[in-house]
């Protein structure tokens, strides 16, 4: 199962020309969980070692894309605009992973790449 927002984020990435690798097979459709509270829950984003080393800006670009979509999504709603997003980063050859869970206002989403970089560096 996947978060209902996964489909929307996939469309956004596709429109921006960012290629993502889905977990499921081409013909397979995972059911989505649709919670009806006002918190926007994003999909878990997995970032492989190759992506982080070859294209470090990709995380920034992806999060900018998501936050600009969310600014539109929350337009007219009273603040705070609560969001939740999880990022899993693959660390080099030893197959260790770092799991960053973000819960907060959209305006704080811009800090995620720095946090991910710092956590990755500290754990090296």
């Amino acid at each position, binding site marked *: 199962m996947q978060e209902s927002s996964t489909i929307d984020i996939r469309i956004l990435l596709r429109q921006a020309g960012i290629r993502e690798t889905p977990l499921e097979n081409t013909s397979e459709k995972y059911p*989505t*969980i649709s*919670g009806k*509270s006002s918190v926007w829950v994003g999909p878990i984003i997995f970032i492989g070692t190759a992506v982080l080393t070859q294209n470090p800006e990709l995380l920034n670009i992806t999060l900018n894309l998501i936050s600009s979509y969310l600014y*539109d999504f929350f337009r007219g709603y009273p603040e705070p605009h609560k969001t939740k997003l999880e990022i899993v980063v693959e660390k080099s050859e030893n197959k260790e992973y770092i799991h960053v869970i973000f819960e907060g206002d959209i305006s704080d989403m811009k800090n995620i790449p720095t946090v991910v970089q710092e956590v990755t560096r500290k754990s090296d």
Partner: protein
Amino acid sequence: MINTNPDYFIEIEPLFKQVRQAMDDVSRFCNLSRSIEFQKEKRDDLIRLINDVRQFKSNAIRVSNEHLANMSLALEGCLTSMLNELEMWIAFKNDDPNTAWTQLINAQSCMIAALRAHDITSDYEDYCQRLHVLEHCLFPPMMFFSAGLVVKRSECSICGSEYGDCDHIKGKVYMGQYCSRIIKECSPTEISIVDEPASKHCRVISISENGIMRDFLTWRKIQETDELPPP
């Protein structure tokens, strides 16, 4: 500020001015002190203008002018929002707070949708915030429900394909129409009581106190034969 791109704004400008004028005019009657007969009069004026805007939108869709179609949809949302607010005040005067709540939540939803539809309505962000303030000033603290679902199959309201297979995103506007994700197959998983629901229509409508069932808003005793208030 509104982006008044002259290429297409010029065509909608007269209607836009009419809408702004109507919003300014009707807002003077959106309060408790103005008499109900004037509020009803203004309601009829708004309904007429909404029909004009819809006609304009239909014409824009017919000639495939997406900017005009989306702008008129946004204007329609503003007017409908204010119409709902006016209906809320009228419902209060009719001693019907349940309908008043429904109208206020509809007003909020319409205004939020209008803001998303096009920047032509960006000057109404404050009006939208006002509607949220009214919720807390006019009604007691509410309790809401939130439903959790597992969706197995859903369709795009714009093109009818499986949602996610096309490039349309729910909540966005395409040729004067909001895109929705139409759920075709789902299983409910849970219901929770929450402070911040996605839909404020999902609320507690009655409550039992000392063995007496009461309407949550009026606090009147509910008779077993009474009809439930509107959702």
